[in-house]
């Protein structure tokens, strides 16, 4: 029972991450009609915003460690600590939450730059060319990060108060063994919040309504004299923010390296397609569905019966869904079918 509850949490947690990445991807598909292979790179960039913020905050006085003679080893004392004492240390410790706030404007700028600088020229081009150019862009972004930050994963801790596990079992009157990391609970909660925010934006603002109308029928909306183009640029920015914030929040769970984006790329495409191209609720539903199924398939009891099932379950589910429902869970007719 406890085990199942924990796996459900794991699944939802994973699902939150999948859904956030897929959300932006499907938004860009639906509105701009662009297959963005660089979307994973946005996720990775978000993670490195967190790394960069951490580095900046913990910028240090270098004190030479004299015990090591043959290379320069430094003991480091961050300026923040020197200037503000414990308060400074606390700020450094909270670098991940801070970086989430930083990531919003930074990712917006990156998103806008990407859309204006490159993507906008590819709206009318074939999907094949979109794939090639965005894949190239993803490689370039990855390599730049590699040059700047190295190829090794970089650890950034969650704030100490939420770095450890939360005693779920004690709260619920269940087993003591039922614990779950605070940060993962926060991640799940925040991803739900972000998803809700994106939906609210599309549902309740006039801006969002125009975008939704544009997703449904771009030409007509364009004929109404609305500058759909500019709104789509903003949509790309939003997709970048969602992916970037998801990446920044993911840092304490998964120390990021420059390859992080590629690792998530395929998965996020599977999520989007299982959800149905161009369907936002579909992407969210598919994200959570695949996350939960993957978690349950990884349980020892399941693996004893079907060895290796956890390695292929996502793909099996994808095949099953696509064969049962031609356009995924909630896909619209005619989107990306040719």
């Amino acid at each position, binding site marked *: 029972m406890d085990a199942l509850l924990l796996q459900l949490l794991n699944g939802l947690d994973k699902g939150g991450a999948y859904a956030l990445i897929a959300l932006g991807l499907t938004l860009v598909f639906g509105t701009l009609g662009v297959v963005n292979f660089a979307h994973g790179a946005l996720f990775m960039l978000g993670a490195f915003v967190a790394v960069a913020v951490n580095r900046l905050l913990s910028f240090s006085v270098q004190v030479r460690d004299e015990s090591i003679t043959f290379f320069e080893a430094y003991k480091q004392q961050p300026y923040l600590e020197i200037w503000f004492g414990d308060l400074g240390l606390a700020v450094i410790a909270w670098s991940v939450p801070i970086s989430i706030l930083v990531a919003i404007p930074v990712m917006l700028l990156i998103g806008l730059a990407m859309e204006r600088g490159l993507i906008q020229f590819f709206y009318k081009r074939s999907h094949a*060319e979109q794939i090639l150019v965005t894949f190239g862009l993803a490689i370039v972004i990855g390599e730049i990060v590699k040059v700047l930050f190295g190829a090794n994963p970089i650890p950034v801790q969650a704030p100490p108060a939420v770095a450890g596990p939360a005693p779920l079992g004690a709260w619920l009157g269940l087993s003591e063994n039922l614990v779950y990391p605070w940060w993962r609970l926060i991640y799940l909660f925040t991803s739900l919040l972000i998803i809700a925010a994106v939906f609210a934006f599309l549902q309740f603002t006039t801006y969002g309504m125009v975008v939704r109308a544009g997703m449904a029928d771009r030409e007509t909306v364009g004929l109404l004299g609305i500058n759909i183009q500019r709104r789509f640029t903003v949509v790309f920015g939003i997709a970048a923010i969602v992916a970037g914030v998801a990446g920044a929040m993911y840092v304490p769970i998964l120390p990021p390296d420059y390859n992080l984006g590629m690792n998530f790329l395929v998965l996020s495409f599977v999520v989007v397609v299982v959800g149905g191209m161009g369907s936002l609720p579909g992407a969210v539903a598919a994200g959570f569905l695949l996350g939960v199924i993957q978690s349950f398939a990884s349980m020892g009891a399941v693996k004893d019966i079907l060895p290796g099932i956890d390695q292929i379950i996502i793909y099996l589910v994808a095949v099953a869904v696509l064969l049962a429902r031609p356009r995924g869970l909630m896909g619209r007719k005619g989107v990306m079918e040719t």
Partner: protein
Amino acid sequence: MASITEFNPSTPKKDLLIMAVFTAVVLTAPIWLAPIGASYPDLLQRFAIFGIFAIGFNILFGLTGYLSFGHAAFLGIGSYSAVWMFKLFSMNALLAMAFGIFVAALFALVIGFICLRRSGIYFAILTLAFAQMAYNMAYSVLTPITNGETALTLDVADPRIIDRAILGDAKEALPSPSLFGLELTGFTSFYFCAVMLILAFWVSLKIFRSPFGLKLLAMKSNQNRMQYTGYNTKPYLLVAFVISGMYAGLAGSLMAVTDPLAGAERMQWTASGEVVLMTILGGAGTLFGPLFGAAIIKYFENIFSALNKTQLTEVFGFLPDGMAEALASVSLLFVGEGWHLTLGIMFMLVVIFLPGGLMEGIYRLTARVKRKRESGGAVSGGAVQPSE
């Protein structure tokens, strides 16, 4: 929208010329590739093998427009089948290839039958899913068949039933794949691959020129019209899928012939993605484009990745010391461990400046030159344009 197709009216005579030139160019590759450091058997083989892979992929993607993101699975299956043929029966390359192609065709038939129930991105994700399942299984639970991470290799103690029956049990050392006694190593092996490439290209040319190929292309353009014109489109697509799967199987078994080893990462999505990139980079739907794309990517992978600081400093040696050093350091971002960066930049540049890939870019450039020459005909002496 309209892509350049090789269905531009051609004539048998022109095609014969194409084949002749192509054959000559391929067979003399060791000579003309020498100046750019690509004239060694392994890379030449790779050009040929990945050329075959991309040509085959192009028959599916270039003609029908169905983007398979899981084609590397058939490459891997071809390799595994060929190596098993070597291990169990005979080191004869032709047997191994026949088996590799056959097994790949079987898998392509089943996977294609399922995946072709969908189109567009749904088709792409279905093929991706099958290939990823194949990769993940081959890497782990199927290790008894695939030898997992360490890859399937030959062993002196392998049964090799046919070889032993014919040649006896004499050999102590590990045998090489052979063609009726001719050991396929080094340049011999390259020429074997080259012949296969020429054959593969010829088949592709024939398909491009056949009514079958024309129908595939028409399907890419308008499948609905195709159906109302009286064609049952599914079997056409399936046949195209199987043919391109067989090409992948041929490429995979050739990899095993040139280097008797089969590893799971050959089936990973990145490998499938690579052939997609090759084809688009060169120009999907063109005869030569995929070959170009394959050669360029493999060249980068093998030559650019191998440049290091010492060599670069030598290259810039004619400059003053500090400058040479600085230039070498900057260049180092793009070669050696930075070769991916160059690849990424090249992808972007090609798509931005040569829409439709290298081949279409070349067509456009020549067309522009032609037009210029035509408009300036009086000045340049009015070159006579061959009418097509």
